[in-house]
């Protein structure tokens, strides 16, 4: 087992008066894929968004508890949210490229974070990011055309390329394949098995089969609580909790 990369302890999240997460504690390991599953509204995305403080942008949202990355509390006052988000990238359900060229989509982050100093540096970052996202060969001849002109699956890989362009350590994926067809989904999954060699990946997915295929550990959320977290093998073959079993076998309701 790899070392703990992210450790969440006793996380409560409130949206105004409404509590969305209840005392969630979970460790996620370096250079592994951790899947978060559970029915809609169970809190898995809310939990994911605690890891890069995306919940900060929602005024009525408050987070209690502790999230640490490599042992450092990310909610500490000394932490700059911008640098946190540099090391914790995110990919969303719907591909959301900027309305700019493919090149600019990727160059934007390194430029604003001051990672690239010259045009040559930027060119190199754009190329390697696209290569790591398994997109380079498909777009190398049209880098200056709009990113929005790509197919859905390509756009999603462009968003992944954009996320990794700033050298993050962690990539959060919130249902990254739910808007994609099976072929584009397979490409993303194939890509994930490459990316995990370099990055720690946390994925929220509604596809049980996807969680079973891509992840090493899986956490099951229900009604804002983490019901069970275990190796993916165990969760999908012989889970310890009846609620987990009911959910993954399609008996919830």
């Amino acid at each position, binding site marked *: 087992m790899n070392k703990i990369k992210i450790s969440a302890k006793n996380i409560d999240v409130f949206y105004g008066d409404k509590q969305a997460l209840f005392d969630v504690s979970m460790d996620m390991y370096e250079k592994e894929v951790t899947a978060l599953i559970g029915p809609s509204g169970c809190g898995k995305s809310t939990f994911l968004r605690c890891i890069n403080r995306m919940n900060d942008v929602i005024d009525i949202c408050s987070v209690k508890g502790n999230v640490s990355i490599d042992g450092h509390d990310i909610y500490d006052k000394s932490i700059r949210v911008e640098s946190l988000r540099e090391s914790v990238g995110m990919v969303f359900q719907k591909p959301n490229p900027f309305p700019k060229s493919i090149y600019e989509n990727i160059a934007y982050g390194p430029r604003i974070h001051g990672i690239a100093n010259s045009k040559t540096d930027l060119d190199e970052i754009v190329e390697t990011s696209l290569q790591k996202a398994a997109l380079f060969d498909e777009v190398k001849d049209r880098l200056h055309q709009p990113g929005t002109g790509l197919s859905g699956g390509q756009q999603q890989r462009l968003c992944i390329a954009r996320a990794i362009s700033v050298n993050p350590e962690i990539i959060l994926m919130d249902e990254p394949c739910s808007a994609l067809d099976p072929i584009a989904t397979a490409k993303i999954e194939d890509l994930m098995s490459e990316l995990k060699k370099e990055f720690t990946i946390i994925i929220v997915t509604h596809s*049980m*089969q996807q969680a*079973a295929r891509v992840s090493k550990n899986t956490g099951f959320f229900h009604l804002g609580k983490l019901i069970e977290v275990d190796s993916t093998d165990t969760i*999908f*073959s*012989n*889970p310890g909790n009846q609620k987990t*079993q*009911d959910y*993954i*076998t*399609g*008996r*919830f*309701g």
Partner: protein
Amino acid sequence: MMKDHIVSAYDAQLELVNSNLIKMGGLVEDQLRNSLQSLSNKDTSFAEQIIFDDHKINALEKEIDALTYKIIAMRQPLANDLRVVLSALSISNDLERMGDHATNIAKRVANVKINLPDAPTIEIVKMGEDVQFMIKQVLDSFVKKSDKLAIKAWDSDVNIDDSYLNIYRELLETMAGNPDTITGCSHLLSIAKNIERIGDYVQNIAEDIHFIVTGQALERKSEKRINWEEINQ
């Protein structure tokens, strides 16, 4: 109590696998009972009927196979559902083999034209009845999804192995004492072996049921081991 699936057609498919397995188990029970009866009564025409009946068991195995493939393709079962579906394939395969062994007994009854010695025949029928009880036990454990009953059925096999060994010894002695009995006793040895094998398949099924219920492989050793030294004397 297991909750229903959200998709009720899935429940219906799993229930069909379940009921087909129980039906198949019942047919195998009948097949062995009838074979033993034809053996005790030396009833060749009944034996012919039993041989014919074997196709019903084979047909059910094919039906269960087709259904489980369909469920895997359509539903991608997980956890306990996956164990049930995979075990159903293995259980139906074992039941089909048990049916073949029972049918083999009837084949000998139907086709062997010489008299089989009475005393060992009675012993063999007795052993067959014990195996029938094991089949009943293991089917009960399947219906009730009870790993405890499955273990009971599994454990019973040691008695069958003992009986088989005694019959084996007895038949050797009979043959040694009177070479005229060699042909008849050889047939009986084969029949005894058929029955003993059925007991082994019951153990396989008991292991599958234990796996369905607990998610764990059944790790168990027989209490007694065959004493080869004694046999070699």
